[in-house]
């Protein structure tokens, strides 16, 4: 561990990628993630990295498809409209079972939307990224330090499962400055060789990177193989944080920025006698379904707080499975909920004290 440095979220993620041994970045400019590519464009020359500003997000996602197939640790970052375009490459990357890391610093939508913070890409991230039967591992940090740690881990998870990993933040996480500490840097030359990669068939049979299977039975087998990976992720990669879950009557479920705001609201509400706790998903896929379901046996109510009109709340409902009421509070379009608004919602659920 090094010493603490004060850094903006976007730049800290970029530095974390370098420390994770990533030396290839392909992207296209978009607010509010611009500091991330700018940082890499500045720093990559020092470590022999390749920074390429692509002609579009479609091209960028296919460049990472190529680079990942060639065996590299590779990163791309964007914000909502750009991720929609990257969906093509991401589907191929998942289909061809390649590791890659994608950052989405989410902004308001649909369409051009706004450049303000948002969590309205939850469905896209966890369910409907692109065509086909696949899932990404989706990580959702709520502090700059966590963004750093999860970025480094994202590359490990991607390599472990040969699956793309998506890290979602928003303009607040991206722009906010916080003190961070970095783990020791990984030397990309020390990483295990990827035997399946395209690097020239010297003294071996050719390697083929591909997502096509013309026979339905073959594709079904492939889909089942992918599903087995996602099932394994559900067993092994679920991450979440609990706050006051032992005595709570009401459990807030919130991730990223809204989890930060919710924890402030929880302190305020507790002072007024409301026993509120929180389960904060750190992985959005796989979703912390079991802990939510178990907690439902002890508490009275759940409240999902999001910067959307209600997306993650559907997964909370599935997890609670009818055991207890699931409420929702959301602001959207780039509007950030205040702690007071959340406290009001808690009072509405909890009744007068």
């Amino acid at each position, binding site marked *: 561990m090094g010493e603490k440095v004060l850094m903006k979220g976007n730049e800290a993620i970029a530095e974390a990628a370098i420390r994770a041994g990533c030396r290839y970045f392909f992207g296209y400019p978009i607010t509010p993630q611009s500091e991330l590519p700018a940082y890499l464009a500045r720093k990559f020359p020092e470590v022999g990295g390749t920074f390429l500003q692509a002609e579009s997000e*479609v091209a960028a996602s296919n460049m990472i498809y190529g680079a990942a197939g060639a065996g590299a640790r590779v990163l791309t970052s964007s914000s909502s409209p750009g991720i929609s375009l990257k969906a093509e490459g991401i589907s191929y990357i998942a289909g061809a079972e390649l590791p890659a890391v994608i950052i989405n610093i989410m902004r308001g939508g649909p369409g051009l939307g706004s450049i303000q913070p948002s969590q309205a890409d939850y469905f896209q991230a966890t369910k409907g990224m692109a065509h086909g039967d696949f899932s990404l591992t989706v990580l959702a940090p709520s502090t700059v330090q966590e963004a750093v740690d999860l970025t480094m881990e994202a590359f490990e998870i991607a390599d472990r499962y040969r699956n793309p990993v998506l890290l979602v933040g928003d303009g607040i996480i991206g722009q906010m400055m916080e003190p961070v500490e970095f783990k020791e840097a990984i030397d990309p030359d020390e990483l295990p060789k990827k035997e399946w990669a395209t690097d*020239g068939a010297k003294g071996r049979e050719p390697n*083929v990177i591909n997502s096509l299977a013309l026979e339905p039975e073959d594709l079904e087998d492939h889909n089942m193989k992918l599903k087995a990976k996602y099932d394994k992720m559900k067993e092994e990669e679920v991450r979440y944080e609990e706050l006051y879950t032992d005595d709570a009557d009401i459990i807030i479920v919130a991730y990223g920025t809204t989890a930060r705001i919710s924890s402030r609201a929880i302190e305020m509400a507790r002072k007024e006698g409301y026993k509120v706790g929180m389960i904060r998903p750190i992985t959005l896929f796989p979703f912390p379904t079991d802990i939510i379901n178990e907690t439902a046996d002890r508490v009275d109510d759940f409240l999902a707080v999001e910067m959307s009109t209600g997306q993650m709340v559907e997964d909370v409902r599935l997890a609670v499975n009818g055991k207890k009421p699931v409420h929702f509070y959301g602001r959207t379009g780039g509007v950030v909920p205040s702690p007071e608004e959340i406290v009001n919602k808690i009072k509405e659920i909890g009744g007068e004290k």
Partner: protein
Amino acid sequence: MKEVAGYPDALTDKQFHYCPGCTHGIIHRIVAEVIDELDIREETIGVAPVGCSVLAYEYFNVDMHEASHGRAPAVATGIKRVHPDKFVFTYQGDGDLASIGTAEIVHAANRGELISTIFVNNAIYGMTGGQMAPTSLEGQKTTTSPFGRDVREAGHPIRMSEMLTQLDGAVYITRVSVHDPQHIKQAKKAIKKAFKIQLEGKGFALVEVLSTCPTNWGMKPSDSIEWLKNNMMETYPLGDLKTPEGVE
């Protein structure tokens, strides 16, 4: 050097699936021969398109990457940036390169990406059943231009190769055909030159190869050769469009 008549090492022994009279197979074969003659089979990474030649990854006996439709130059860029010392080529049809992948080919060429592109122009979408391509000729009947391509509605046949010559990063752009042995010989020479340009680090090179699609042109193989000679070559004249000094 390989013996000319032998079966190229750079091809697998899988049977081509191409229709009778389709020239995709000839183009595969000469690409493979050039790879062998340059002795780069074990250094090569090929990028296959989406189109009739989607299964090129089964035919070339080299590392292969199957791209999404039109994005082969972007995929190749990613590969080449990771392995600058390896030889990277794309093999693309005209729907792939001249329609959906226009942006990717233009910018790869403009960056002077050290990749080589084999651009197979058969003036139609073969794989999807004979729809109009941007390269279809004026008046050409296809399933989506059943009364013939009307240039007022559908635009004129796009001459991608001529367009690409305007980019400083593209150093060698040429158009060839494989409809007879003499032209096959010339085509092979052009492909070899394009590959050497990459190996010598000179810039982006593209060889456009006029190709037949008897199935979707609705012709016998022999008629399709005549149609290529009499119609395609007028819109797409053969020859070097841009060539660097000092490369044979």
